[in-house]
């Protein structure tokens, strides 16, 4: 797609980076609510495969999304540094709180609009549609992938719906 990079990404200057399958990703910091240690997650039979389960976030039951499954990356291995990034995402007009399983937490990055590049159409581990852009770090010439969490969640829905067409003919 040749859209210009969206407004919010240009305006937001702080990102939280985290490790996922040996690659550094980042999310707009305004979306991140908190970071917690990975603890017991209750598996939910019948849930989409990328939902690792649900956990108790101070009294609310919150789903944990395994991005490695969702983005078709090498599977995550749980370590002592594994954690859950609790984020706010928008899906079908509602705001939902969910946890993202990450291998490790990185740092808070300050990126000006000029540091955010349009993602290349190939060569990234995840599809360019799922990215807000590429963050260029001035300090050590690294790139981080700026994830568009809303698109990640919504796009998969379409794929799922295609894979399993709804049961037909309830009413004859």
């Amino acid at each position: 797609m040749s859209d210009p990079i969206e407004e919010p990404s240009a305006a937001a200057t702080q990102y939280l980076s985290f490790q996922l399958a040996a690659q550094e990703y980042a999310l707009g910091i305004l979306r991140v609510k908190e970071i917690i240690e990975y603890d017991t997650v209750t598996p939910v039979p019948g849930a989409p495969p990328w939902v690792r389960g649900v956990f108790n976030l101070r009294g609310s039951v919150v789903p944990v999304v395994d991005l490695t499954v969702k983005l078709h990356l090498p599977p995550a291995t749980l370590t002592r540094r594994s954690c859950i990034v609790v984020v706010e995402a928008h899906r079908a007009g509602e705001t939902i709180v969910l946890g993202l399983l990450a291998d490790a937490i990185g740092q808070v990055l300050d990126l000006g609009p000029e540091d955010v590049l349009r993602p290349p159409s190939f060569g990234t581990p995840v599809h360019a549609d799922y990215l807000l852009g590429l963050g260029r770090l001035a300090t050590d010439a690294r790139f981080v992938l700026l994830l568009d969490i809303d698109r990640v969640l919504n796009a998969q829905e379409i794929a799922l719906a295609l894979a399993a067409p709804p049961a037909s003919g309830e009413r004859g």
Partner: protein
Amino acid sequence: MTPELQQVHAIFLVEAEEQLATLERELLALERSPGPEVLRAVFRTVHTFKGGAASVGHPEAAELAHTLEDLLTLVETRAVVLHAGLGSLLLQAVDALRERVGLSATGDSTLSLPAAEVQDLLANLVKAARPVGGAPLERAPEPPAPTEPESPAAPEQAPEHTLRVGLSRLDRMLDLTGEIAIARGRLATMLSQAHRYTPQQLLEAHHEGDRLHLDLQELVMKVRMVPIGRTLQPFARAVRDLALRLEKQVRWEVSGEDVEVDTTVAELLRDPLTHLVRNAVDHGLETPERRRARGKAPTGTLSVRAFHEAGTLVIQVADDGAGLDRERILSRARAVGLLGAEAPSDDDTLLRLILEPGFSTAAHVTELSGRGVGLDVVKRNVEALRGTLQVESTPGQGTTFHLRLPLTLSIIEGFSVAVGNETYVIPLEHVHECVELPDAERQPGRTGMIQLRGTALPYLRLREHFGLGGGPPARESLVVIGQGRGQAGLAVDALLGQGQTVIKPLGTFCQGLPGLSGSTLLGDGRVALILDVPALLQQTVKSPNPAASA
């Protein structure tokens, strides 16, 4: 609108809704037994509403209320006689008032007129019947006109659900939270110097806070309870309008209006009740001629009775109409293949048939007993409330629907079981008994069948059904679950016992999964899933039985 004005408007809407509901009830009472007392009450309500409407900037609503008052004055001075037509007009005026302030009507939509038309009708009536002698009723001074008429347009968002709570109850809540804070503080102090106390003493201190917390929980639950009468009230109007349109005579009787139920339950009851009431008037009750021909009083009775029974709410919707037409239902069921030729025809079977979604397609409604429009909706709603629906019907004598519902949706009594590392909660009302799985059934497999006191009981092994992995333990237990007459077993690793379960919704990604109805938090902070027994029963019955072929 400024936020402050918006707030004032929201409060007005809540009050207006109540006032107009009261007005409707009073007008219906006036129609049944006209008297100066009732009329005075009607006046008071209209007047209060008028004042409120004028002060928040609804001049048209105030105007309409004013005309209504004029007309009521004529009724009081007997310059106008109150007949059924006028009664309808007065009720339509209530709907018009609702329209003017941006609330939705409760009456039969096919009978309602636009507000402007109602206003004209009222005004014409007032003009036509000028009082000759009697002095008009004295009026209180007009409320001050709004200084700056704000846009009287419909509100942008639906009014928030609110609940009035007695101040004394709130005070008690505040007291309790204070006491809990003190108890917690004491416990924290003791724990920080735990070596100075015995575990017994610490536990004692903890229990103290526990008791207070339970008191608070009970109080909060109580505050959420509302009388069911408020939910039932709009039906008086609906029944009247519907009966008028269908040219039937219906007496509407309600008992148990004071019975309290959780506000969410009351809210969710509205839909199923609407269907049951409409069905009863439309299809259950006969026309006056038909009733006379059958030797019954021309006026039919439709009664709703609410009462508490064994920790549940029971609502009975009873009519003394024609009853379910067994033969027609059965022959139709056989025609569409829902029933074998020799199947029994008790009430439960009939109910099951008329609740089938496809069973009551529009073309067959009138030919059949007529029951059916929307009944599958009733069933769905009642099941969503974790309730049950039963029917009793005597030909020629009438039909009674029994709805049995939990008093609250947020806490249930649950029975916990363990499979591997996971804990699952089964609503206790669906647990019939627990037995040990016989040794002969110890081979793996998703489903199987055992003999329970001479009858065959299919069962589902939860570990394999949910794909949890891991090997079975040395001993497996079987929880016999059931709903209605259906029964099945759930094979689990261990039985953990019963306890209060606070229900938490599962959230966007995990909602509506087969076999799960929600989740709850365990004492150690983990999440446990609550099983959906009706769905599991269905899955057990439907799945092929590998044990039989093995």
